């Protein structure tokens, strides 16, 4: 490919920020190219359950944005793509190399998922944050955009089962990486964030104790498209009834190199606690915090609402988590209000 493409704006990242920027620019009449590294648009938000403080269903408010973006005539979208070598030209424009990675499935795919049934390879599903498995050929998730399958070539056994079953003949193992030069006037970087890797705090036992999960894993258990039809403990599939939240895991902590506050976790924990009270009416939820950062419009009221629903908030930093034989977890913490070191038992811990 040598044809040179020109755009007014390159937007990097197709999360809610990238989509919103692309759409606004497109509506103002600018030509936009949106480049998303992942297989689908939507970023983190499309995977969330409900959003604080309005408790709107997240998928329901993200998908229309995403499909409006995908449809806008002024926006060209490249998913599963990245850019390399951004270079400023003398004209002030930027020369960029667009890299499209092969999906090994063409756009003819209808998203019927027949191939998934036949594929013999099972690996962890990254879109369910490893809670369940997926096949080596897979439609990323039910509301993915574009809803086209992709082959995870690293795990694929090249058995060809999918090729035989695909009614649209869209499997194409001959695809290769494509590079296209493009010229843009402006670049918007909206590549979002990564979640902190909790194995960097070994004291919390993530990865070792199965009933210690991340907030994203809990988020996935609370969405309509959740992997199980209920909130379950990963270790034994039991319904938890005494859940603990450990706040500031990886934030406000110089020992892991991150002194700043992530400013969303207090609120999403408060939100998840409220949703858990709905999903598991008998369960107790305790939030261990340093300070509750309920600062935005409607946030403080939302926090008070959680307290009113019976969520317990304990000011204290968790020092150590250990596992009992039955999979329950012992949390050792400094209870700041009493000044004592205490220990509490919970059957599921969310970091």
């Amino acid at each position, binding site marked *: 490919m040598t044809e040179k493409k020109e755009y007014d704006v390159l937007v990097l990242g197709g999360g809610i920020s990238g989509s919103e920027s692309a759409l606004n620019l497109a509506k103002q009449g600018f030509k936009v190219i949106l480049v998303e590294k992942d297989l689908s648009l939507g970023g983190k938000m499309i995977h969330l359950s409900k959003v604080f403080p309005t408790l709107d*269903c997240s998928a329901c408010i993200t998908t229309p944005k995403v499909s409006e973006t995908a449809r806008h005539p002024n926006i060209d979208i490249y998913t599963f793509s990245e850019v390399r070598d951004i270079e400023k030209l003398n004209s002030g424009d930027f020369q960029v190399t667009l890299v499209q990675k092969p999906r090994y499935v063409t756009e003819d795919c209808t998203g019927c998922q027949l191939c998934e049934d036949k594929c013999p390879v099972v690996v962890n599903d990254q879109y369910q944050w490893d809670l369940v498995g997926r096949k080596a050929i897979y439609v990323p998730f*039910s509301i993915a955009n574009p809803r086209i399958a992709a082959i995870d070539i690293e795990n694929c056994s090249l058995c060809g089962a999918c090729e035989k079953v695909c009614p649209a003949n869209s499997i194409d193992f001959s695809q290769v990486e494509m590079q296209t030069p493009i010229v843009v006037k402006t670049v918007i970087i909206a590549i979002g964030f990564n979640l902190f890797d909790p194995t960097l705090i070994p004291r919390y036992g993530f990865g070792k104790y199965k009933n210690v999960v991340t907030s994203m894993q809990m988020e996935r258990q609370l969405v309509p498209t959740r992997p199980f039809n209920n909130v379950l403990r990963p270790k034994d599939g039991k319904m938890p009834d005494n859940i603990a939240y450990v706040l500031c895991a990886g934030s406000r902590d110089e020992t892991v190199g991150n002194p700043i506050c992530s400013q969303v976790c207090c609120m999403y924990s408060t939100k998840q606690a409220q949703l858990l009270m709905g999903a598991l009416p008998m369960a107790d939820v305790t939030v261990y915090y340093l300070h509750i950062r309920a600062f935005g419009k409607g946030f403080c009221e939302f926090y008070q609402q959680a307290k009113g629903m019976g969520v317990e908030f304990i000011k204290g930093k968790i020092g150590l988590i250990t596992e009992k034989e039955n999979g329950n977890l012992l949390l050792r913490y400094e209870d700041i209000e009493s000044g004592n070191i205490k220990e509490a038992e919970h059957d599921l811990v969310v970091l």
Partner: protein
Amino acid sequence: MKQKIGVYICQCGSNISDYVNVEEVAAQAEKIEGVALAKTTMFACADSTQKEIEEDIKSRQLDAIVVASCSPKLHLFTFRNVAIRAGLNPFNYVQVNVREQCSWAHSNNPKQATEKAIHLVIAGIERVKHSKALPAIKISADNAVLVVGAGVSGMRAAIELAKMGTEVVLIEKNHFVGGRVSQWNKLFITDETGQEVVARLYQEVKNHNKIKLFTGTELISKSGGVGNFDIQIQFTPRYVLTTCKPDWEKIQKAISLCPIEVDDDFNFGLTKRKAIYKNFPSELPHIPAIDIVNCNKCGECVKVCEEVDLEQQVEKLNFRVGAILLTTGADSYEPKKGEFAYQEIDNVITLQQFKRLIEISGKELLYHGKKIRNIAFIYCVGSRQQDGENKYCSRYCCTSVIHSAILVKEKYEGIFNFHFTRGVRTYGKQEILYNKAAKQGDIFLQSFEDSPTEVTSENGKTIVKINDILTANMEIEVEADLVVLVTGMVPRENTAISSLLKIPIGRDKFYNEVHPKLRPVETVIDGILIAGTCQSPKTIMESVNSALSAAAKANSLLRTGEIELEPTLAVIDKETCDWCDACAAVCPYDAIEKSEVNGKFVAQIAKANCKGCGMCLPVCPVNAIQLDGYTDVEMEGMISALVS
């Protein structure tokens, strides 16, 4: 009547299907005459389903569709667009809400939720059967915006709009620009001064020929709607000529000769100022103003400075703009007398006073002549009230007070800071300042929610007392030379403009947006936008972010010079109408006019003004008015289905 209707029942993941038996709803819908197909779907709004509906419309030649899903507030336009793409008129589509109205409302009774859903869906089908294809209505729009308030938000938005080619009328009530920010010297997080920030913005505003800035000016009337607001503004004169470059020596002299002294609002009453004044030397515009309410017209200033003109008159100007952006800011909370001993003990002041005090003090930090060493900061005054009205957190104040505590220590020696907090909320990168304050030796304490910090006076000493969470409920007392009440933000008293524009007010009494996540700078009134602290407490960065977003929204609304309106308007049957004036009298949008047709007077609808609210329908004595999209046959069809 429509003969080939497509019906889609959404499961909404499981939001709907957990409680509503969607298969049953589809089966019942399919039985209705005129229904060509009825399907269920996991997510009706998903791209793949949208494509499927389009395909169905084309291949099965559907002449109308019904989608039973969530509230039309969310997806009305999503499915209208599906219809348009498939070549169907968008008004041959009806959305039925079976989520908020059925599954969520009746989660305790799935059977009845299902029954209700069936009724609502059939009613939707009956309505769509009688639906008319309505043509799009387009009106011309002026690519011009009125921005109200020249604080950081207003100025930033004005500059951005002008750069995008939109004409801007920027009005500021005060005689000087900058809003609150000009009152704070060094700002978190950059340590720039407020004056620097304001001066930079002001220069850009002045340099742009698309921006007309009027100070001392307010909006006094408005008519029309989005695309074409006719506005009138009024300016109070500053009584000093703005045309010539002022001679500063003469002006200084005039100020010193002025015999009037009043409390200086700018310094929150810490100092006095004259009736002819400038709040600080570099304030902009670089011309003093006369506070005519307090001026006694003695003429002393005129004697030394011919640029003073006490004869200037109030003036008015008219403009037409396509949209209005409100950036009218917020006020600081004013503590009640006795609240933490405010106005009872002399050395209890507010954070905003403290900020001015640091700035105007010289070599030593003195308050009423007394040297300050121990400072007690009491947090959340006027915010996070459990019993009071202000339930919200003001979000800027933890960081602002910590930043001020750092500044005061940098400027003066021997200061000890004690922070009486309710849990510090230095979110995001502001956390760095909290760490810095702790490292410089500031003491942080935290009160229990049910036992607030107390301020008392004992033998002429001011004592601040707390039961402290951080030391496991120790009772701690500090003798303070100065008590600083960390006051939050409250909505500005701005009733004139709020009622003129009918701006929606939220529970917290700040201006309210349509949706905090998806439409954070628009209001429910088309063409009226909000940004900055008039919406909720914000830092400068957050205020400016919202200002930029509002500028982009306004520009994208107006730049094509055309706006599409909802065609669901009132329609007059000219045969039946006998012009009695009843409808015109109730129309809240002045959309009904008297006109003459074939020698007979009848009512006529001004399309640009009609909002389709339907107020005129029931008052017409001869039933000559119908509302497109909600005609009698459609409504009657629905009602019969619901009661059957």
